């Protein structure tokens, strides 16, 4: 697999495991950074994961099934959380932020229809304008 290909495959895998579209992933501006980071950190496991992923039917993907080894499974979780939180989890408890940018670009904020605290403010009074609670809005 060539470099471009594996990067592309990494994005495809990321789409599958995060539930976000390629556009969402690219909008973080950190796609290449994340790919290179993981590739530097876990070159062998990543390669193995991508190879294996290449042959999984997308619809059949699930972390519950033992299709992936424990090691690959853990890497998948690390990648999911990297996209969602900008953190690199060393294990299920310990982590660090890759950068202040990765904190701000965490997709979790989009997932919960919010914004990273301390960045991308939503505007004066936006916190009282719900998309869910129309009936009680601005009574």
């Amino acid at each position, binding site marked *: 697999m060539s470099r471009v290909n594996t990067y592309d495959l990494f994005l495809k895998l990321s789409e599958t495991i995060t539930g976000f579209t390629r556009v969402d992933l690219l909008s973080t501006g950190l796609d290449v950074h994340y790919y290179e980071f993981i590739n530097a950190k876990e070159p062998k496991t990543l390669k193995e994961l991508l190879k294996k992923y290449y042959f999984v039917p997308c619809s059949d993907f699930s972390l519950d099934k033992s299709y992936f080894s424990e090691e690959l499974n853990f890497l998948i979780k690390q990648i999911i959380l990297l996209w969602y939180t900008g953190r690199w989890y060393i294990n299920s408890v310990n982590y660090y932020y890759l950068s202040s940018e990765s904190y701000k670009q965490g997709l979790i904020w989009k997932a919960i229809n919010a914004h990273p605290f301390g*960045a991308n403010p939503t505007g*004066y009074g936006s*916190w009282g304008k719900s998309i*869910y609670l129309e009936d009680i809005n601005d009574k």
Partner: protein
Amino acid sequence: MINECIDVSEKEFDVVIVGGGIAGSLIAKQLGIYGKKVLILEAGESKHMKYLDYQRNLDLYYSASVKSPNSPFSSNSHAPQPDELDVISKIPYMNSKGYFIQMGPTPYRSDYTRHLGGATLHWLGTCLRMIPDDFKTKTKFGVGLDWPLTYEELRPYYEQAEYEIGISGEVNDQRELGQLLNIKEEWFGKEYVFPMHKIPESNIDKYLSKQLEGKSITFQGHQYSLKVTSTPQARNGIPNMKYRYRGEPYKPVGAVGNDFQGKRCVGYSSCVPICPIQAKYSALKTLDSALKSGNVTIVSKAVVTEIKVDGFGKVEKVVYKAYTSNNPNDFSLYTAVGKIFVLAANPVENSKLMLKSLIKNDLIGKYLMDHPFLLTWGLSPQLLGIFKGPGSTSGIESLRNGKFREHRSAFRIEIGNLGWLWSNGAPYSIINSLVFEKNNSGKKLRESTYDMNQRQIQLGFMLEQPAEATNRITIDRREKDSFGNLRPIINYKLSEYTIKGMEAAKQTASTLYSYLGAKECTSYTDDDPGFIQYNNNSYAFSGAGHFMGGHVMGTSIHNSVVDKYQKVWGYKNLFAVGCGSLPTTGTANPTLTLAALALMSAKWINNSLEKEKITIGVDK
């Protein structure tokens, strides 16, 4: 003028202030306007008075793995600070690895920051007035201490404080609350309005408000309403054209060094620990305008270590350590001379300085208090539209007063806008468990993350804590850190009165969650440092960041450290200001009251300087 670590011993000031937090800066500003020569000695750094340097603190916040109150404001070895993360256990020794030596039996869980601007850099900005009964709890409920002044005396200074800080709020909401709290006195003046309109209520505020309409809870046969009330707060909103404190409507004050920013809150949601645009008030704003008077000098990186008193109860000078680098030996000792000295370094540092300098009064350091904070959380059947806006914009305030205060603490209830952030580390904790424990991924993960976060309700109960002499700050001259700083020693315990309040708080929480049709998820585990068991039920308290007591005010040297103007009994020209002077905590976040008291002291100090008489020091 701001200088770092310079020698000022050649100059003489009218007033020397120790500490550039809100208390010190308000006094400096007033006296500067009155034409007095003022010096502020500030232990920490001052570079964040420059807009771009302030912004750099944000990066520390973004990349901090735990976004605690002190995460943007790093510790400084010449002026160490406590950190709430220092408290990790129920064992006092284990909690003593930071700045404080915690003697227990329960941990003191709050922190502060020692940089110019002080704890208002990372505060939330909730600015409630205390209620008149809070000033006379001993007389009225037989609990705690009475104040040497009444609410009425302080009311004009509350108004001034609301101007100086810049409060957004709806006075009619407070008036309505006043009726629920059975306040007979004039709590807010008849014509009074806040400088700015209230900050809009959040989605969850509105939802709770609707669901709790007409609902109440009964304690000992008395019914108490569960009404939701908007919170007056120290963040910029839309000016109220009816406001006429200084003859004209209020002009919101923007960021220091960049007045285009921060004139209105835009919902960065990071008020604690740092507002990126300074829409939230911090003492930096007051310092900035104090400097404009041309009469105020700030010297930062200047840690006051001792107060020198002559044989007649008059302070001659203070000694300060001016440091230039983060090296233990890189400092010089200088002195500062003035007519009046004001300790405004916060309850712990004020007490430490007075104890170290052998100021004569057995009560120094005693009556340390906080607002023990009981977090509760639940899941709503309804998606709420949270994780936006300031940390809190409303509360349930109707349980702040009642006959029950004869035997248990009152409390206010803070409605959180940021889900289980504080109680559980949401939204991260949710996704962590979905991925690691539930093996979720893909679309399902995304949907569950959304669903489980957007239903979160967090209600924080902020409890009154009466003054007790055994809760105290002391020092031991042998207990120094590697930089030679004395470490504060903290003895702290919650009395049964407060724990009973916690019990009532927990009952109230359950009632509230059931009215809301929400699933209560609160659970306290015994590895929590604030874990307590009482009557077979479990609780865990946190700190509110509200250091109070240590130099309480009273009517004589026998029951207090300072008089009602915050002058230290027995000393002609020494003041100790801030929340350390509060004899009771009530259930209002304390800084607005601190500000009102500081403004009252400023006026009094100015009058005495004007008279140039030795009236300063005439103890009653």
